[in-house]
C-alpha cells in the first residue's frame, strides 16, 4: 500500500455514519476511496454542494457540476447545491462534522500552518482558514517529515499560521497523534514502524501512553 493510501485508509476510519465531510483538494481527496458506502458519509465541496461523488467518465463531464478545484464531478442521489454564503455558513457554523486537510507544519498546541511559505509563490488560503476554524473536527493528513526529511510536527510552527489550536487529529504514514490540553498524545503507530522511530522523527515531545495501538496492514 502506498504511503498516501495508508494514511487515507486510516483517516477514513475516523469518519462516522452520516457525517458531513469536506476533503481538501489534493491528497485528502483519496480518503473518499476508503469510506465504505454503508457509512453514508456525505461530502461537501465549498464551492457550493453536498453529495459529491466520483469523477465522471471522460466525455460525460457536466461543467455546471464541479468541485472546489474547478474539476467536473458527479453527484449522489439527494445532492444539493447552494451559493458560497450558505456553503460557508455550513462550514463556519459547525455543520461540517470533519474536514481533512494537508499541512506543512503542526505544533504541540495544535496550531496549523498549511497555506503559505513566505517568499515562495503564494496560492492563497482559499477556504482552508474557514474550514479549520469552523469544522467540528480538523483532521490533518500528511507525511510525517518534509521532503528534506525534517519533522513537520514541531514545538512551534515556523510558517504563517492557518489557525490557532485547531487541529484535532494528525494522521501520518508513521503515527496517529492527538493534540490535547496536556500536549501531543501518540495514539497509534503504523505497523511498519516503532514508537522510537516516531519519536525520533517528531520535532517536539510526544506523550506516550501505555496502550499505543498499531494501524495499517
Amino acid at each position, binding site marked *: 500500500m502506498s504511503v498516501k493510501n495508508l494514511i487515507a485508509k486510516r483517516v477514513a476510519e475516523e469518519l462516522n455514519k452520516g457525517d458531513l465531510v469536506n476533503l481538501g483538494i489534493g491528497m485528502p481527496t483519496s480518503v473518499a476511496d476508503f469510506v465504505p458506502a454503508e457509512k453514508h458519509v456525505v461530502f461537501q465541496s465549498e464551492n457550493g454542494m453536498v453529495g459529491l461523488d466520483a469523477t465522471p467518465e471522460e466525455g460525460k463531464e457536466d461543467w455546471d457540476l464541479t468541485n472546489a478545484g474547478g474539476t467536473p464531478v458527479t453527484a449522489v442521489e*439527494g445532492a444539493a447545491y447552494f451559493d458560497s454564503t450558505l456553503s460557508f*455558513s455550513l462550514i463556519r*457554523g459547525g455543520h461540517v462534522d470533519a474536514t481533512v486537510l494537508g499541512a506543512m507544519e503542526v505544533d504541540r498546541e495544535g496550531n496549523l500552518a498549511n497555506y503559505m511559505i513566505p517568499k515562495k509563490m503564494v496560492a492563497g488560503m482559499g477556504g482552508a482558514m474557514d474550514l479549520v476554524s469552523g469544522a467540528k473536527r480538523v483532521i490533518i493528513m500528511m507525511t510525517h517529515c518534509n521532503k528534506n526529511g525534517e519533522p513537520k510536527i514541531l514545538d512551534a510552527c515556523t510558517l504563517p499560521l492557518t489557525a490557532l489550536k485547531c487541529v484535532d487529529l494528525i494522521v501520518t504514514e508513521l503515527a496517529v497523534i492527538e493534540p490535547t490540553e496536556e500536549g501531543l498524545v501518540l495514539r497509534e503507530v503504523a505497523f511498519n514502524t516503532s514508537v522510537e522511530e516516531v519519536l525520533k522523527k517528531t520535532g517536539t515531545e510526544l506523550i506516550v501512553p501505555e496502550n499505543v495501538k498499531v494501524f495499517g496492514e
Partner: protein
Amino acid sequence: MLKKEIIAPDQAASMLKDGMTVLVGGFMVIGTPEKLVDAVVASGVKDLTIVCNDAGLPGKGVGKLIENGQVKKLIASHIGLNRTAGDKMNAGEMEIDLVPQGTLAEQIRAGGAGLGGVLTRTGVGTLVAEGKQVVTIDGEDFLLEKPIKADVALIKSSVSDVYGNTKFNKTTANFNPAMATAAELVLVQADEIVEPGVHDVNSFSVPSVLVDYLVE
C-alpha cells in the same frame, strides 16, 4: 446519502424538553408548522423560550403555546395580532424581547453561520440599543446584536425530498430557511414528501444535511 426518518408529530414533539429554546418558522402563521405546534401543545413541555417573527394569532401558530402557558420567554418582532401575548407580558407571566425584524432574521442567520454577531444601524439611538455594545466602524456607530442559536427548530416545508432537501412556496419561506441552520435539532413538517428528481434540484433552499427528521 441516508434517507431521513419520517416521524409523526407527537414523536417529534417528544424530543423537546422543558426549558429548551425553540425556533418556530412562519410569519403571522403563514409558513408555521401547525401540526408540530399542536403536538408540542399536547406534549405539555414547558418553560420554553420561543423565537418566532411574531406571537402568532389567537388559537394559531405560537399563539397556541403562549395561551397554553408553555412559553417562559418570547423573542419576536411583533406581537400586535395576539392580545394574549401582551396581556401575559403585562401580567409578568411571560417575558418578551421585542427585536427589529431584520435584526432577528440576521441574528438567527449569524447563529447558524458561526458569526460572532450582527453589526447593524437598525436601532441605534433607540430603546433597542440599551445595554448593547456599540461598535464604531469608519466613524459610524453600529449595534452589535448577538447570534441566536437554539436547541430545536420547527420548520414548515412545502416540499421535501426523501433525503430532507427542502423547498418553500412563495411567501411561506420567511424565517424557515435561516432557522434550519441555527438549531441542534431540526424538525421539518412537510406538506409533501417526494422522490429526488420530481422537482428542479436548484429550487431547494435548505440542503438535506441541515434536516434531522421529516414530520408528516
